[in-house]
């Protein structure tokens, strides 16, 4: 799949719009999910996903075959997302402490039915969504790239433009922070252990 990505990207570089359309179909859901989790707004995520691919089309002449297309595309999506968050001045999300844990956040934003799950599972998902929303953008993005996109540390480093050692430490901090938020919302005592 990855080789085909690069092959399609090389064709798209020459102006082949059909090749680019295949790339869009292949990556639109991944990009959309990442942007949605970063922004928390479905409408904005749809707009930004479109913008990401349009920017990718315009930036294609600068794409180097040595770079994985998916990593390069996520760089564009990530930069566009951070730009929007900065414009919204919401790079640091404010935790929603007043709400009851597990309430409302369990519901998917698009109204699609959740799979059959036990109540405890639904509550855990709700808590995770709230914990994610409470994290700084820097920690949220690295968690999403690792946990949802299943990127290796090397791929995350390339996407974020940081060293792999930084990926390791930032990811650990993000996990610890997510757990702390999770427990806070769940009413559990925070873990006293620190890295």
């Amino acid at each position, binding site marked *: 799949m990855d080789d085909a990505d690069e092959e399609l990207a090389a064709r798209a*570089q*020459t*102006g082949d*719009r059909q090749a*680019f*359309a*295949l790339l*869009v*179909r292949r990556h*639109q*859901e991944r990009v*959309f*999910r990442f942007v*949605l989790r970063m922004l928390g707004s*479905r409408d904005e995520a*749809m707009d930004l*996903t*479109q913008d990401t*691919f*349009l920017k990718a*089309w*315009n*930036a*294609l*002449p*600068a794409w180097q075959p040595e770079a994985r297309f998916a990593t390069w595309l996520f760089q564009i999506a990530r930069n566009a997302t951070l730009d929007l968050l900065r414009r919204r001045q919401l790079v640091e999300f404010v935790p929603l402490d007043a709400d009851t844990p597990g309430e409302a956040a369990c519901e*998917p*934003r*698009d109204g*699609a039915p*959740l799979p059959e*799950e036990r109540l405890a*599972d639904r509550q*855990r*998902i709700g808590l*995770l*969504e709230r914990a994610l929303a409470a994290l700084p953008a820097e920690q949220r993005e690295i*968690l999403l790239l*690792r*946990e*949802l996109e299943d990127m*290796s*540390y090397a791929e995350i480093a390339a996407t974020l433009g940081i060293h792999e050692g930084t990926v*390791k*430490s930032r*990811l*650990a*901090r993000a*996990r*610890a922070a*997510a*757990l702390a938020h*999770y427990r806070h919302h769940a009413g559990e005592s925070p*873990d006293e*252990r*620190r*890295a």
Partner: protein
Amino acid sequence: MNAAHEAHITDNDLSAHLDAELDAAAQRRVEGHLAACPRCAARLADFAALSADFDRLPQESFGCDLAGVIAGRLAAVAPPRPRIPAPGWRGLLPLGLGAAASVALGIAMGAALLGGGAALPRMTAMSVFDPIPPGGLCLDACYARGADKTGAFIK
């Protein structure tokens, strides 16, 4: 913080262990510690549970074929322009030659203007400064030199 606490595996290593991103030696060290340390094992289990919860997140979908939308928007714009390789130093040669010619012309014009009657400032004007600082001792030679100029000090 006692010695036993310091010996625990850090969150950094536990997190990397979960992701199978440690080198072989570090992986063995962590596994050995986890086998004997319920505290670190519990922390790792927390990280693993958090990771597993991500798999349960609702799979949001864009909901339509974005390629069609993009194709429509791209139809209105020109295809991306092929990348033009950087010119390198040879590409800068004409610019450099032009700059050198401009400087040479400026120097020639300046020289022509100065040579046509404009006098250079005379460095002898600096002689208005007395070599003896105010309040400094003036030796006989000084008085003698002053006397030579004005005649007032000649005894």
